């Protein structure tokens, strides 16, 4: 990672640790402010750390303020809040005793109390804060955060010498004050426009540049270039750009263009970096060619100066990187930036990176260009349990795969898919991986409930230990993951996966042609109901591609697909494995490769028309008949097959699908181990319950002796699945799910007594006993009327049906039995769908 950063002197002041209960912003002078030249070059060495500590101090200050007692917070806010007295126009409480010589009147109020009158409007302080009383603590804290920011901006404004910059600070100062007054969120509108200001962004262009110029390099060299690109982007994101007045411009156009961009940068990137009340954007993500052209040469120069100045302090390997490779990198970049036309700025830039790089590009470069916070988010929950992401290798699930050898095995391979992610991400063997896992964990703030790291390491070690890998299970791995064999074979080079396709414009290798013919044979043999000619036409169509499964240099299976780039989906056309190679997990592994391939190409939707034999397969591969894609997206694009079912699968870019099963397995193992550990802690045998023999029908779960010790909690906290569904704020999903449940319940053999409301003519006294009747038809009507906004309402009505029945009828009746049977069925259904609590 780059320690090198641009000139990053801080504008925001640092706050004192004064604990006098007031809001003294210390007069401690921050480093000189943003006039680019002065703060760069030789002065830059300490910048990074001073910037960091400034940011930290601001954060500390905010935390400190947030921890104040509520009254103190109000006293503080009074200074920025309008007087609520009738017709009073005063917009901030002022201390009645003007401090002697302080230039900052409003920030020093040590002795205020709620009864002190305001110097300007004479109303007491309390009237300035009366409207804040109903606000939540969170909202009050948000306002206080803005107060801290306002004060920091105020300081910066005073220190700023450049007139243009000063004006911008003043504007932001006023904006934030207004937001505190009106209790709104700051939004910056007006002639500056909204980010992103230019497409493609600098980050995208640099990504393109690395691909364009270095895509042909071997992995190691490519990695170097990629690191440099990351470093450069990092510098830009933290760079202090020159004020327009400090620049020598050639043309008036340039002057005004730079002024606009400079102002945008201040408002959207620079100031929000330390005033987090304002929405923050990364420079390299919202600016494009114009800004980079304007600043590149000076940035280049200053960076080089800085590198030379710091050379003695660098570790040797970094010195080589920074002094040998970086200048070359920057000068190549310079050419592209100032060239009349360069492909790197092409918004449609598409250069398929060499396969061994694809994955790392997709998973890593974006991470370089977005903020740390979002890159952490990106890597998501999926691999959290095992290896927390770090900046260095963002996607870590591969560490769990058995495929450590992939890299060595296939380094020389051409376009084979198998190595994709693994090759560029896994730097070392399993043992050392585990060590580095442990290291990485520490980088990530651990959530409260997380396990101690030592426990995780211990568990992983047990799971991976050889004694676990032998024994009868190893001989008959009945429960091995479906794709395990296929993965092993791929690892050993017995099978391989390749994406092949015909082309009319460029030469197609003989190998590819032979494979395509082989694939056509596999498809036409395995799909006897498809006309042969039709299969040939699609397999050899240049718009279709086929993921081929190759064994002994012959295709034994494949998935033929067509990608609709503009629509963002891929249609799966044929999918087959030759009969004597079936049931070996190849189909699953094929589909997982296809998913990974598409994530690498930013396509996240699969659609396919599955015939009756294929539906089962596609279901296992995560497809559903429930099409989540808008019809307009695919209508008219996808081939329609009669008698086949359209199925859809949405991909999650955070998942490496070829490793998915292994990861989930491992997670399961870990959880199992944890349960075992817990069991050993609380093992205790309780005598059985006798109350049921005495005629008690049911007791609350929590009164079962020992159940709490096992970690069971009352239903206040629903199960995980249930929570998800409950929190699911998509009413349509809930509607569909409940509709399904209702339909199946209605179709149940025990449902007949409950289909309609009880007829008063048939059962005259029914409504004398039953005050709240309910039946399945009424439920259907309520469902249609969207009455069931939560599952609980639905469950309540359904339960009502059964309790009514049991209330009115005696236990030996058919009705009573029906109620019991149907209730049991209903609960099972709901449990299956994760809609049941217990």
């Amino acid at each position, binding site marked *: 990672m780059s320690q090198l950063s641009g000139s990053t002197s801080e504008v925001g002041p640092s706050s004192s640790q004064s604990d006098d209960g007031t809001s003294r912003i210390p007069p401690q002078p921050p480093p000189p402010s943003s006039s680019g030249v002065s703060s760069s070059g030789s002065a830059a060495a300490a910048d990074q750390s001073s910037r960091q500590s400034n940011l930290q101090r601001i954060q500390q200050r905010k935390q400190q303020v947030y921890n104040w007692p509520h009254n103190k917070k109000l006293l503080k806010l009074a200074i920025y809040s309008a007087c609520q007295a009738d017709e009073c126009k005063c917009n901030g409480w002022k201390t009645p005793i003007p401090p002697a010589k302080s230039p900052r009147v409003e920030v020093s109020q040590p002795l205020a109390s709620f009864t002190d009158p305001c110097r300007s409007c004479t109303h007491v302080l309390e009237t300035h804060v009366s409207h804040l009383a109903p606000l939540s603590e969170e909202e009050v804290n948000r306002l206080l955060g803005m107060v801290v920011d306002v004060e920091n901006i105020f300081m910066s404004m005073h220190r700023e010498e450049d007139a243009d910059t000063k004006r911008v600070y003043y504007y932001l100062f006023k904006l934030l004050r207004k937001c505190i007054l009106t209790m709104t969120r700051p939004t910056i509108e007006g002639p500056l426009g909204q980010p992103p200001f230019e497409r493609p962004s600098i980050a995208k262009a640099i990504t393109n540049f690395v691909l364009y110029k270095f895509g042909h390099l071997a992995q190691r060299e490519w990695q170097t270039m990629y690191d440099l690109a990351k470093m450069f982007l990092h510098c830009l994101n933290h760079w202090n750009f020159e004020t327009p007045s400090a620049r020598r411009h050639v043309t008036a156009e340039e002057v005004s263009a730079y002024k606009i961009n400079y102002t945008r940068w201040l408002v959207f990137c620079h100031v929000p970096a330390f005033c987090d009340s304002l929405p923050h954007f990364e420079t390299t993500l919202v600016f494009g060619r114009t800004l980079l052209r304007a600043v590149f040469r000076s940035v280049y120069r200053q960076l080089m100066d800085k590198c030379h100045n710091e050379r003695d302090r660098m570790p040797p390997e970094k010195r080589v990187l920074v002094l040998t490779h970086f200048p070359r990198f920057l000068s190549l970049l310079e050419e592209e930036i100032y060239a009349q036309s360069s492909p790197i700025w092409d918004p449609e830039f598409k250069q398929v990176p060499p396969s061994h790089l694809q994955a790392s590009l997709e998973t890593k470069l974006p991470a370089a260009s977005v903020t740390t916070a979002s890159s952490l988010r990106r890597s998501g929950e999926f691999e959290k349990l095992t290896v927390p992401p770090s900046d260095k290798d963002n996607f870590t699930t591969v560490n769990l795969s058995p495929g450590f050898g992939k890299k060595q095995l296939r380094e020389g391979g051409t376009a084979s898919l198998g190595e994709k992610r693994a090759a560029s991400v896994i730097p070392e063997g399993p043992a050392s991986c585990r060590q580095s896992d442990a290291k990485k964990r520490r980088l990530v703030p651990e959530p409260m409930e997380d396990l101690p790291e030592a426990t995780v390491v211990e568990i992983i070690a047990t799971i991976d230990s050889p004694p676990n890998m032998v024994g009868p299970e190893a001989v*008959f*791995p*009945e429960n*091995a993951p479906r794709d395990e064999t296929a993965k092993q074979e791929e690892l050993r080079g017995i099978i391989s996966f390749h994406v092949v396709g015909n082309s009319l414009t460029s030469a197609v290798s003989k190998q590819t042609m032979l494979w395509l013919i082989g694939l056509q044979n596999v498809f036409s043999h395995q799909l006897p109901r498809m006309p042969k000619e039709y299969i040939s036409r699609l397999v050899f169509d240049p718009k279709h591609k086929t993921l081929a499964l190759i064994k002994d240099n012959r295709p034994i299976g494949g998935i033929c697909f067509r990608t609709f780039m503009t629509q963002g989906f891929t249609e799966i056309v044929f999918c087959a494995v030759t*009969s*004597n*190679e*079936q*049931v*070996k997990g190849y189909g699953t592994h094929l589909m997982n490769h296809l998913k990974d391939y598409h994530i690498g190409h930013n396509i996240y939707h699969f659609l396919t028309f599955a015939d009756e034999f294929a539906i089962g397969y596609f279901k296992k591969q995560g497809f559903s008949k429930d099409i989540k894609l808008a019809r307009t997206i695919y209508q008219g694009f996808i081939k329609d097959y009669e008698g086949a079912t359209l199925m859809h699968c949405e991909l999650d870019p955070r998942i490496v699908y070829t490793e998915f099963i292994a990861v989930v397995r491992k997670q399961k193992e870990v959880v199992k181990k944890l349960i075992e550990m817990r069991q050993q802690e609380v093992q205790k045998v309780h005598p059985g319950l006798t109350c049921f023999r005495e005629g008690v029908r049911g007791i609350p779960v929590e009164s079962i002796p020992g159940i709490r010790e096992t970690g069971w909690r009352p239903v206040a906290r629903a199960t995980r699945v249930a929570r998800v569904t409950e929190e699911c704020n998509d009413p349509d999903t809930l509607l569909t799910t409940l509709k399904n449940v209702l339909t199946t319940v209605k179709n149940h053999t025990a449902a007949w007594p409950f289909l309609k409301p009880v007829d008063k003519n048939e059962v005259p006294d029914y409504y004398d006993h039953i005050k709240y009747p309910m039946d399945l038809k009424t439920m259907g009507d309520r469902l249609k009327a969207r009455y069931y906004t939560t599952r609980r309402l639905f469950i309540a009505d359904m339960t009502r049906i059964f309790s009514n029945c049991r209330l009115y009828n005696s236990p030996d009746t058919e009705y009573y039995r029906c109620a019991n049977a149907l209730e049991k069925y209903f609960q099972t259904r709901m449990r299956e769908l994760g809609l049941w609590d217990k």
Partner: protein
Amino acid sequence: MAFSADAAAFQVQERLKGLYRLVHDIEEERIRSEHNLNNITKAHEKINQEEKVSPYYQQKLKGLYSAAVADAEQEEELIRSALTKVNEIRSIRNERRIQARNAGNKETIRRGALMKMLQSSAQTLPLWVGKLGEKAPALCGAVPAEPTYIAKMGDMVAALVKGAEEEENWILAEVVQFNAATNKYEVDDIDEEQKDRHILSRRRVVPLPLMRANPETDPHALFPKGSIVMALYPQTTCFYKAIVNQLPTSSTEEYEVLFEDPSYADGYSPPLTVAQRYVISIKDKKGKSQT
């Protein structure tokens, strides 16, 4: 014999211990034999030097040879008892499996796993190692069962069953029991997804080999090239008519067969390999081709 899970584990453990000891004994025995064999070689060298066999050496050689034969027999004995142990473990496990199934807790296995188990159980089928001049017994390789043979419970058989649309298929099945009164077998489809139990007359049930034949020692116990057989189509649980294309040349190799298959232009599938256990002779022509 019936076992509880623990008892079975204990029994297996005991046999594994025995096996462990036997492996060491075998090694010791081998070293001893080696010693004698060396002596024989030395004796021969001496005789060659002297260019005549003196009565002393005659006597000595005779002694050495009988010792070597005894050693070899001893070693054979040990190896056979080791094999017996292995077989016992197999049958205990099989017993457990049948028991578990009868108890109703039949663990469902995925098809992929099932295929793998079928494959590995064929590969580990006991190898017939006959004594000198002993012929391969029934149900070894291609040698058919005696006409009166009744397959035991848990044995694998090929069974001719009626499908949904009146078509008949030879499927891989497991014997549940034989009813001597009705002279009928009760068999289970090995493919659990079918969940079918069939009651079939004896001629519709063909027991699968219980032992592999070693092509190097018992070539006559293999189907000759060109013979028409029924063979399990790879990765399925059905037997189809096929022609033997190539014989296994070692005990671990499989047959290479061509399946009758009209969906291929020449009417036969490309050569596919099938383990000895799943190649049987069937007289009628009910077999159907893979589609």
